[in-house]
């Protein structure tokens, strides 16, 4: 299994999903997980966890830069798919440093500071070469890669071993940057998915995106929804009177932060005694502040910045409604977490979680009026609220990583990989 984000280094949902999924799968299969960076304090039972930052590159045999089975043009451009949080601008490549000029020096060890730093593509290439060399000494049946960062590695390993390549799709370039986005990452995703033998997107929503925006046949796709770990939920007493509506996620286009603001303004028109809280950071941080002041709801619209898990759970424990207005959300684990805390969810139909959380109120991300109406109803109608929460809690029984792991193994078997 090839991972990029992995505990203890987590940026978003991917790291959590990879960890929880591989952990559940390790009950059913022998797994070697190769990740860019591991921490000596972090170990997993039943699983061989390899952080390539710990490997002396001169000690591995066959370490070379191999050619790809297809051509990917690289151009010196700003290709970072994730925005840096501080400046709100994407970190840029240093074109003159020769990152793309082909004369990459072979480093002694693999060193990565930020998983999505400015030189992410360079790191992805290095990761692929090193991983392929490691894999040449290993015995395995299936290559299972997570998202575009590990696709190159998966491709190279398939090339040298002939073993089936499975690509687990947690997020696509078209989610992050809009359906029209093209570029190096998109090209890699497209070629990679074409080259793979089985694609496992985390939702039908993402499966549709793969078909519609990458032109890939449905027959290669097997949807496996994410699971969720059981969290010990609790309620805390709010320190203020107003009911609270919560948003959790990166403040970036994909997550629809502006929709959340519009919804907030709409709700406050009818009910001024509600607070809206956005937990997270991102390139929309500043504009959210400015726009909330334009709408004159500055005293009801709060940004908390980055929160650790303890603070986040506290926030769940005081919230009355969870709102996820994502424009394109492959899954949306945070909504499941909200449901675990017994909070009714108002979520966009453009999300994977909407397919498994029938105990929720749904809206198209552009339908601000409908979302606002749903929130107002949930805040004022205890019967509706109770019903939604109860239904969601039933759904939760079917949203587990054990079920996901089982489905993946079944999908392998159906394709006769094992």
């Amino acid at each position, binding site marked *: 299994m090839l991972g990029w984000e992995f505990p203890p280094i987590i940026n978003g949902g991917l790291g959590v999903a990879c960890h929880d999924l591989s952990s559940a799968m390790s009950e059913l299969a022998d797994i070697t997980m190769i990740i860019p960076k591991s921490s000596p304090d972090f170990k997993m039972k039943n699983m061989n966890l390899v952080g390539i930052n710990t490997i002396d590159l001169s000690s591995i045999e066959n370490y070379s830069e191999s050619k790809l089975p297809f051509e990917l043009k690289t151009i010196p451009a700003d290709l970072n798919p994730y925005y840096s949080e501080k400046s709100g601008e994407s970190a840029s490549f240093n074109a003159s440093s020769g990152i793309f000029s082909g004369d990459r020096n072979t480093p002694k060890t693999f060193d990565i500071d930020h998983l999505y730093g400015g030189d992410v593509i360079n790191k992805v290439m290095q990761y692929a070469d090193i991983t392929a060399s490691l894999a040449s000494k290993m015995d395995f049946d299936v290559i299972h890669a997570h998202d575009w960062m590990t696709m190159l590695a998966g491709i190279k390993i398939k090339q040298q071993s002939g073993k089936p390549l499975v690509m687990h799709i947690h997020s696509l370039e078209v989610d992050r940057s809009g359906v029209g986005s093209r570029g190096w990452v998109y090209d890699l995703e497209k070629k990679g998915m074409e080259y793979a033998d089985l694609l496992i997107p985390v939702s039908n929503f993402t499966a549709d995106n793969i078909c519609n925006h990458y032109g890939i046949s449905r027959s290669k796709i097997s949807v496996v929804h994410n699971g969720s770990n059981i969290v010990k939920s609790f309620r805390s007493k*709010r*320190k*203020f*009177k107003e009911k609270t509506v919560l948003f959790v996620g990166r403040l970036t286009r994909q997550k629809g932060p502006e929709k959340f603001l519009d919804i907030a303004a709409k709700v406050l028109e009818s009910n001024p005694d509600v*607070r809206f*809280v956005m937990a997270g950071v991102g390139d929309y*941080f*500043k504009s959210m*502040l*400015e*726009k*909330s*002041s*334009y709408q*004159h709801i*500055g*005293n*009801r619209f*709060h*940004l*908390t*910045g980055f929160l650790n898990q303890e*603070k986040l759970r*506290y926030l769940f424990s005081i919230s009355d409604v969870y709102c996820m207005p994502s424009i394109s959300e492959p899954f949306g684990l945070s909504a499941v977490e909200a449901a675990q805390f017994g909070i009714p969810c108002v979520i966009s139909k453009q999300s994977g979680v909407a397919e498994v959380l029938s105990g929720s109120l749904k809206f198209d991300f552009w339908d601000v009026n409908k979302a606002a109406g749903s929130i107002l109803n949930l805040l004022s109608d205890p019967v509706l609220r109770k019903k939604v929460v109860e239904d969601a809690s039933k759904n939760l029984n079917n949203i587990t990583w054990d079920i996901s792991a089982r489905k993946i193994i079944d999908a392998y078997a159906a394709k006769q990989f094992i």
Partner: protein
Amino acid sequence: MPSICFYFQVHQPFRIRNYSFFDIGTSHIYEDEQKNREIMDKVAEKCYLKTNRKMLELIQRHQGKFRISYSISGTAIEQFEKYRPDVLQSFIELANTGCVEFLSETYSHSLSFIYSKEEFRRQVQKHAEVIKKYFNQTPTVFRNTELIFNNELAAYIEDMGFKGIVCEGVDRILGTRSPNFLYRSPNTKEIKLLLKNYRLSDDIAFRFSDRGWKEFPLTVDKYKQWVHSIAGNGECVNLFMDYETFGEHQWESTGIFSFLDHLPAAIMEHPDFDFKTPSEVVAAYPARDVYDAHDFTSWADMERDLSAWLSNSMQQEAMKQIYSIEKDVKECNNPEILNVWERLQTSDHYYYMCTKFWNDGDVHKYFSPFDSPYDAYLYFMNIYSDLECRIKAFKKKARRDLVKQLKDSVPRAERIEAKIVRKQVLQS
């Protein structure tokens, strides 16, 4: 006979702390006590004590001929009381010389005139009381926060009994006229306007140590000549600046104190020149022309308007919210709540939220305790939200108390009887 009129602004805000969303309803501590104390200590050592000592020495040396004025905000005085009583004492000593005038301003250095006349009047009166208490003077000349001014203010302040008002000498209003005369506002009777000569003022306040300036270094001789060249074409040269110019903005190593030490004697070398305080200037000279400031002007930034505090939506929202709760605040009739609200009006909070030239990093950034104007807004609004909650709780309690009071005023037997009657009526 032209007079030099010095007025120095002394102001410190109560800076707020990084008050997070999680503090709302939990903590009512809004201010960054440590930062406020540190800054006060630093400025006291570098500027206030040193400059006050120098001023006292100059007044004594020139036997009453060197005369100056101050405007000290109420929040600055509170900080002196709290952190540096020695600074307050040194101002009192200056007041005792009889050569120092104290001007009137809004207590918390606020923009209240724009948003609430009632609050404006309250703050001006509160400020006058504290000036009377410490310096035994009743101000007769007014200066509004950051020299914010328009015709309406002149008329309003005249109505409150003031004889003069200080403001910026803005080029777009003066045109080719000189700021070195007194002016009057349209629709006023007697009140006179003292216009800041911003060139000569800023030569000291901003350019004194600027090595890129072609007049650098600024010597007393050079400055004296510029001032003396006004002889015959002006009656007052109004040099208005932040007091922190001395020792804080212009460090001691720039030679600012030595400049100050020699300046009065050099200016009085010319027999026609003397020093007067603002009220003395108002008494000595007539208003020569009309200064028609229809829109608000100020002494801030290049624009000399309100944009330093009110140019972006965050500033406008914060300001609008703060003044929207005036009635509620006053109905609470609680000194603590009123005090908090008053301090949140201080213009500096909004100044920190300014995004003008943010990328160039300018004076806004120099003064701001926050990393960005967005942080300044975010923390401010969290505090505001907490204040709102407190006011709500306060009013609720007041209502409950009132109901209880009314209840208690009616004997128990009567209440029970009324209940029975009501029940019967409802049943029938």
